């Protein structure tokens, strides 16, 4: 894919009161991709997002949106970005429509037609003239997205977009985000601590822990690298001994042994097992859940 780079982060660092919160991030996002930003609470996700949209000034490093530096060309850079940071807060005493009009007035060249269009996109036509204070969380979330899309941005930044939505809402949101990327060519930057979410809607994912990116890869690449093979052998102990001679045993369950899935070597291991008089009852290849992967990469546990 030779798509244009829309969001570029290089050497991004943030130190707050002598404590290093973000320790140097480098990322490049291209148009039309949904990029997952994954990390436990307190890993620096929200701080990073706030730096992307100019709410927090980086201690060092450069953020470029469509080639515009957020620090030096703020207004130019912000033209290409739409965002929801944490909760989709709006003015509760104004109607949804007035809220959108309000934000449209702060953007160049957004007319009533465009407002009506984004209302259409998020399917809010029916309640748009009611006060925001009467909206459900799901509707607020959708209004938030409508607001983010107002200026026809190239980059959409969503911080935990499925927070507080019901299962149906989550599914709709996922479909909507995919659609934006595929049909409108938007770059969507989604943060989440829910691995499942990211797995379902993102093309690529960065895993962040303690202010550092642990790994960046396509979702599939990340998963397949960590693929597992689960064995069921009898007799168990003897089989285990033979496997141990050839590879490391990653985990042991009830009558099962888990090893890495290494395509080129598995045949050999199997042969040895058979030669050793072990019957192989089951060889099960399995993609790890992102959860396991995540715990493995970040060294477990939620950091403070």
């Amino acid at each position, binding site marked *: 894919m030779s798509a244009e780079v829309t969001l570029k982060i290089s050497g991004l660092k943030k130190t707050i009161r002598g404590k290093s919160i973000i320790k140097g991030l480098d990322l490049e996002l291209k148009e039309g991709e949904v990029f997952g930003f994954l990390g436990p609470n307190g890993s620096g996700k929200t701080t990073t997002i*706030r730096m992307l*949209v*100019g*709410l*927090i*000034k980086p201690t060092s490093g450069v953020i470029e949106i469509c080639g515009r530096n957020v620090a030096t060309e*703020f*207004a*130019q*850079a*912000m*033209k290409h*970005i739409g*965002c929801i*940071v*944490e*909760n989709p*807060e*709006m*003015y*509760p*005493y*104004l109607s949804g429509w*007035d809220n959108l009009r*309000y*934000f449209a*007035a*702060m*953007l*160049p060249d957004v007319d009533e037609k465009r407002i009506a269009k984004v209302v259409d996109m998020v399917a809010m036509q029916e309640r748009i003239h009611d006060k925001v204070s009467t909206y459900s969380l799901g509707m607020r979330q959708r209004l938030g997205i409508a*607001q983010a899309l107002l*200026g026809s941005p190239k980059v959409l930044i969503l911080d935990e977009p499925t927070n507080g939505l019901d299962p149906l809402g989550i599914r709709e949101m996922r479909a909507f985000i995919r659609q934006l990327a595929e049909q409108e060519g938007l770059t969507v930057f989604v943060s989440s601590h829910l691995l499942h979410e990211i797995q379902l809607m993102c093309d690529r994912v960065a895993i962040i822990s303690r202010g550092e990116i642990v790994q960046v890869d396509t979702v599939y690449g990340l998963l397949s690298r960590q693929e597992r093979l689960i064995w069921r052998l009898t007799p168990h102990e003897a089989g285990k001994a033979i496997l141990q001679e050839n590879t490391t045993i990653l985990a042991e369950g009830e009558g099962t042994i888990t090893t890495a899935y290494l395509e080129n070597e598995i045949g050999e291991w199997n042969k040895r097992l058979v030669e050793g008089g072990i019957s192989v009852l089951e060889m099960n290849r399995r993609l790890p859940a992102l959860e396991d992967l995540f715990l493995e990469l970040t060294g477990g546990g939620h950091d403070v």
Partner: protein
Amino acid sequence: MYSLISNEMTKLIGRRKFIMVGLIIAVLLCLFAYAQTKQSESIRERIGTSDWRQELQQQIIDGQNRLSNAGPWREQLQIRLQQMQYYLDHDINPSQPGAPTFIRGFLENSTELFLPLLIMMVAADMVSSERSLGTIKLLLTRPVSRFRVLLSKYLTLVLSVSMIMLIYGFLTFAISAIMFGNDGWTAPVLTGFSSQGGELDISAVRLIPQWQYILHEFGLAWYVSLVIGTLSFMLSVLIRSTAAGMGVMIACLISGAILSNMVSSWESAKYLFMVNLGVIGYLEGSSPPVEGMTLSFSLLVLLVWAIAGLITAFAVFMKKDVY
């Protein structure tokens, strides 16, 4: 910039701020007007005449009787009495009945506390409410610089202060005209008194028609309101919580009212903004809180405070990380 200001106005109107302010003014005005009628009735009953000369004479006698145990207010009272005598000697009624006289007195009494409180209703949460709602994040991620965002807010504040003054002026006029009749706009008022060491200095006294005097008062009240608005605005930027910001400002205003009566021997207190809010007093010729303070001095002190407040507000707002 125009659309930013109209946005801010939309929010103020959406929260019915001006209606609230209008209602408060109307209710208080009715109360004061009623109290005023009652008071003049009781005075008339006591003296048994409606002749203002006798009324004033009686007030002077009352005052003189109080003089011996007036304590720290002795000097102020003395000046007040000398003033009354001057009015009497020149055969000018200091409180010609009618709407203008009421407006004059009401304005004088509301610049130090009442008007500032109304202004704070608008100014105190201009920035802090965006923080508590979380909408600050949306505001600051638009393609508009932080300087322009805050500037639009400040200009809206200036507009709002002017609007509140207009509402205030209109309501006072309407209600008092109904209650007291619309006479006395051209009645003469003496201004230009100044006091030197407890003595009344009448060298600069001149006569001006009442409407002109009221206009002066309005101008000064607007100026004071603007300064209070600016300082509340700064607090709204500095302090996250609207309640805390308002608390600080109210504490300042009240301490100002108390200090004004106490600081006559604390010379440097005259540089505090809250001691300088009684600028209308200079028109009237009441003695200032600290010896030697003049109208232009007070206006200058207020100006310096407002500018410093504004600079602080902008510097902090433009630099601050928003969480």
